[in-house]
């Protein structure tokens, strides 16, 4: 089969809608998912609505700077979940620390660091981020510090995504959406084809540019 003849492949509407639906459910866009279902008549897969509700709640906690509440809710879902995912646990606790610092509660932040974060300081891989977080205290205005990335919403989103995936794994559901997988595969396939034809034959594939059209 010649890869350039991709236009001959027939893609069914149903399949596309399934992919979009799975994406929405993965990211807890429950209202949008309901809307899509009722508009297209596509059958919503049998998923654990309760699980999705909880995940949605937890994600929002993180984005709304309530990391400790997110931890509490996660532990309700599975007691050993955070124990088995120490990296994630660390990131969440760090977020809480950062929240305290931003609220100007320096002393409380220090207390929290001593009790909850210090144990992580013994492990080499956490030391860097921990030092970065604590270093925020040197600055009256943490936003102006070189470690401001810890305060950004992008970072919080990243942690939230990680937690989402871990929660899905814990519930024995796939942690990656078909959409993501397909896009990953497309990127690799295009890259490979470009290289096959010689490095300068085609420009490197950029998903971003492709989507722009």
């Amino acid at each position, binding site marked *: 089969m010649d890869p350039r003849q991709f236009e001959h492949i027939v893609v069914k509407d149903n399949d596309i809608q399934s992919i979009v639906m799975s994406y929405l459910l993965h990211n807890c866009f429950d209202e949008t998912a309901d809307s899509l279902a009722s508009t297209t008549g596509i059958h919503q897969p049998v998923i654990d609505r309760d699980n999705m509700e909880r995940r949605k709640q937890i994600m929002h906690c993180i984005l709304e700077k309530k990391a400790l509440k997110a931890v509490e809710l996660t532990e309700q879902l599975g007691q050993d979940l955070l124990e088995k995912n120490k990296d994630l646990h660390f990131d969440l606790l760090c977020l809480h620390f950062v929240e305290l610092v931003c609220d100007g509660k320096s002393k409380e932040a220090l207390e929290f660091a001593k009790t909850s974060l*210090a144990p992580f300081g013994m492990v080499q891989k956490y030391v860097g981020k921990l030092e970065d977080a604590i270093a925020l*205290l040197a600055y*009256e205005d943490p936003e102006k510090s070189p470690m401001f990335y810890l305060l950004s919403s992008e970072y919080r989103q990243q942690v939230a995504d990680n937690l989402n995936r871990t929660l899905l794994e814990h519930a024995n559901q796939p942690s990656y959406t078909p959409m993501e997988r397909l896009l990953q595969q497309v990127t690799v396939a295009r890259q490979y084809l470009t290289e096959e034809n010689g490095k300068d034959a085609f420009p490197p594939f950029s998903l971003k540019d492709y989507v722009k059209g």
Partner: protein
Amino acid sequence: MDGTIGSKGLVKKTELVRIITDALISLGFNGIAADLENQSGVNLLDPTIKHFLDLAERKEWHNCITLLQEEGLQVRDEKVARFLLLEQTFLDFLKDDNLDDALNTLQEEMTPLGVKRRRLEKLPSKFVFPDSGEERFIEVMRKLQKVFPPAAIVPEGRLVRLLEESLYHQMRDCDYHNAPDTDMSLCFDHCCWKSKIPSKAVQTLVGHTDEVWFLKFSNNGKYLASSSKDNTAIIWEINAEGGEFSMKHKLEGHEKPVVEVSWSPDDQQVITCGESEVIKRWDVGSGQCVQTCGRDDVGSISCGWLHDGSGIIGAMADRRIYLWNLDGTEIEHEQGQRGQKISDVAMTSDGKWIVSVGREQNEISLFDRVTRGETVIQVEGMVTSFSLSRDDKYLLVNLITQEIHVWMIDGRREPRRVYKFSGHKRSRFVIRSCFGGYDENFIASGSEDSQVYIWHTDFERGPCCVLPGHGGAVNCVSWNPTDIHMLASASDDRTIRIWGLDLE
């Protein structure tokens, strides 16, 4: 006290006075030092800087900061100076559990300075990990001293250090330097040129009745052991007053020519190796043979001591190396049968390596007794003999091509050849050479043209001295390890010559 002193205009008078003041203090003459400061009007240390350092010693950081601001102290970087002082106040607040003041110092006083960002960002961690990396006070004081311009503070012992550098340069500039350190003086420039190389035959030792093949000084330099084709070895002793050698013992018992003599680390005993025969151990005090080692089926080629004197090494004609305890029992030796006949063997003084040479091929083996691994050095020609330096770092190798090579074998890196010497003659016999002289910077060798050759390792081009006098090939030389002005040579003319300084 303005201006400079000296012909080159490089030495500032005020600085000279200051380093002399410091030298006087280190010699214990505090009173004279104070007088010098008074009379010259030049202070060893600027009074304000002295005040600052005194306050720092007493950890009065706030006063230091005030002094810095108000007295306008000359510093290299004011912000860095403030930072270091504030850092100390921060650490003090932490120690007192005063979180508010600590945070305040950090956020409102230190961060705005905009210096030492990496150091700054490590400080908040001390809230959470209080025991991490506390700096020693001596380090803190050192950093504070560096806050001032370089000439503001005279390092302790500066004058002596400058003088030592000068003497050291004189030594380095002295080609063929072979004088003891006690010869160096501040009162005149040193230059010994070749005058300190032993070059005059001060004594001829007669005692052997045939070719003398080997000789070696004891570790303490008081004895000389020689071995000969006449089947004997002789221990010579130096007379304390005259500095002359006389025969102490003749070691008789071998029935073959004695090819080698080796001193135990404590110089109480020697071992002798008969040519394709046995190895005998002798007590130096009595001259008696206390042990004979060997194997019935195979003869000895070469011998050596275990580094701690607890045993003997023998290289035998079956191409194996054997180790014996002093009671005669054999010790396990892991090195297998060698590919070629072994001609020389030795153990390094740390007990780690056994070095051996094969006769037919151009290889030297370094056997590691700990890892049981072997490093093989490929030399450019057949090896006839070798010798180790006293620090075990260098290997002297005599080649059939009339060259002497020096290899560096310091164990941490790959062995590599560092020097090549030539000029002497060798075509038929085994000729031996050795390290010697000041810092073992010289190489001495025998030669078939009856002369002793001496090279300095800085000058590979050619020997710096050639000593005639023997009536036959010079087979072996040994440099006295405790007297850098004494060399001994063994010759086919049946004599041994002791070489010393030519004092004319």
